[in-house]
């Protein structure tokens, strides 16, 4: 065999940088240990929000970053997840651990139903269509009496902390661990996806649909697959959020702001990169929380101004997101000359 070919074949499939893996392992251990050091309620909440938004942004990253479809109505799947868990718990006493999966299933069904006609559109048209779909969910739920219409659902509180009801009133630490575990599982699965045959094919669809077609890739089907995966990732965050705040209404869980924020986080961190949503969430969520604390009721608007400013700076100076600050040889295999 040609020696250069033999060398190429003997290379490891993935660039495993032991130093990077050690840092990641250390960070995971640290994240599990943090509550043990007596973190106060605010910091637990801050981390919970970071984990939640990172997963939501990762969901958006799958459809937009991997397959190239800009969805502006992704909040709909968050809302579906939230309502599925709360409704089935309140009406039938179904544990959220089961209804989370129901929320994922319903979201997947809607992703297929929305995706089949919508994904025929491309570019701005798809984005605008999803924006309207997202808003229409909010309108429907505001008028749907079965799920509390505009008042929403007030989840029946358990008298004590309950793992089966996923309710914790004495400490936020259990929520912290639940969100952390979902965060880690999601990132690991999306990392695997990015390195799978499916991941390769989704990126082909994103980069050049015509070239993808010439390589036996059914572009429409792969877009739908990406949309369904994305919806399945988003829904559990709605479910867990509902159990976290125990009150949901259409303005809160179908808010257009959810769809916009996941977009901002992903673009800030680095779209199309598995690590981008983590970096984006770790920066934008604290800005949002601190501005809410220090600026009170007006904080909700000020954080968006911050977001806008940061995003403008990033788009001008680092269009590939903050992930591009990390040296390339850490993220990619070194080039051979």
């Amino acid at each position, binding site marked *: 065999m*040609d020696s*250069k*070919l033999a060398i*190429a*074949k003997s290379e490891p*499939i993935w660039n495993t940088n032991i130093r990077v893996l050690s840092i990641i392992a250390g960070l995971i251990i640290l994240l599990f240990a943090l509550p043990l050091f007596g973190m106060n309620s605010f910091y637990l909440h801050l981390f919970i929000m970071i984990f939640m938004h990172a997963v939501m942004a990762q969901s958006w990253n799958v459809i937009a970053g991997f397959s190239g479809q800009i969805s502006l109505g992704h909040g709909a799947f968050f809302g579906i997840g939230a309502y599925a868990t709360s409704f089935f718990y309140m009406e039938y006493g179904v544990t959220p651990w089961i209804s989370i999966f129901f929320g994922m299933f319903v979201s997947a069904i809607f992703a297929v139903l929305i995706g089949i006609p919508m994904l025929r559109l491309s570019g701005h048209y798809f984005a605008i269509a999803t924006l309207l779909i997202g808003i229409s969910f909010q309108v429907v739920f505001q008028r749907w009496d079965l799920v509390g219409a505009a008042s929403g659902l007030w989840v029946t509180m358990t008298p004590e902390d309950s793992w089966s009801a996923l309710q914790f009133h004495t400490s936020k630490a259990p929520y912290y661990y639940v969100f952390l575990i979902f965060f880690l599982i999601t990132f690991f699965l999306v990392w695997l996806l990015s*390195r*799978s*045959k499916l991941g*390769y*094919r989704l*990126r*082909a669809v994103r*980069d*050049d649909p*015509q*070239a*993808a*077609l*010439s*390589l*036996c*890739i*059914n*572009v429409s089907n792969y877009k739908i697959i990406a949309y369904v995966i994305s919806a399945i990732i988003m829904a559990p965050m709605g479910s867990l959020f509902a159990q976290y705040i125990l009150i949901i209404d259409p303005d809160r869980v179908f808010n257009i702001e959810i769809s916009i924020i996941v977009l901002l986080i992903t673009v800030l961190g680095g779209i*199309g990169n598995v690590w981008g949503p983590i970096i984006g969430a770790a920066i934008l969520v604290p800005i949002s929380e601190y501005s809410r604390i220090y600026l009170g009721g007006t904080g909700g608007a000020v954080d968006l101004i911050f977001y806008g400013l940061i995003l403008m700076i990033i788009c001008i100076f680092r269009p590939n997101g903050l992930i591009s600050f990390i040296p390339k040889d850490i993220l*990619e*295999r*070194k*080039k*051979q*000359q």
Partner: protein
Amino acid sequence: MKILTVQNLSKSFGGIHANRDISFDVEEGSILGVIGPNGAGKSTLFDLITGFTKADTGKVKFFDKDIFGISPDKISNLGVGRTFQKLKPFADQTLLENVMIGAFVKEKDIKRARDRALEIIDFVDLIEKRHHFAKELSTGQRKRLEMARAMAIDPKLLLMDEVTGGVDQKTIPGLVELVKKLKKTGVTIITIEHNINIIMEISDNVLALDQGKRIAFGEPKEIQNNKQVIDAYLGTFDAA
């Protein structure tokens, strides 16, 4: 054995007849060169055969299978690969990743797909560039990338749109040698080419188009002496 049979293929865009009543056969293992002036309908013909554009009328058979009206992904899955006149590499992915996407058609396992992609990259003499992003490659290298990517699906028939178009003179001989090397693997090739010397050198048969119509089909020597081809395309072609 005939690998491709095209019968009375026509396509109009509004009032413009891109292809009119085109018929020809391609023998398995041969190279068919397609020539014609700009706007003759060569690339449209490729799009019609590979399903990227739906023909108005006609028949296209790949071996015995009617592929008229079938979607491009299904046609490529049958074993019809293609490259594009306007190059379409997956720019933000490495050369290896580009070719692996094609290799996944035959290999489900990632290690085997990677090994197969590496073998093809080695075949097109780009093994040292395997980890370079497609956008970092020169035009000539991107032409090789597209050929490698199309080969990765293990095509029986490969349609190549302007292999030597847009590259410098020094790069052309290497690309021509690569086409000849490809033919030796047994793959049937249809190639659009503007460089008439190259077409005459590599082709077993030549199809000449002008204004969407077939004006000649036959062996290179016949085409070279065909009056219609000379008038439409060759001009005072120097056979030497």
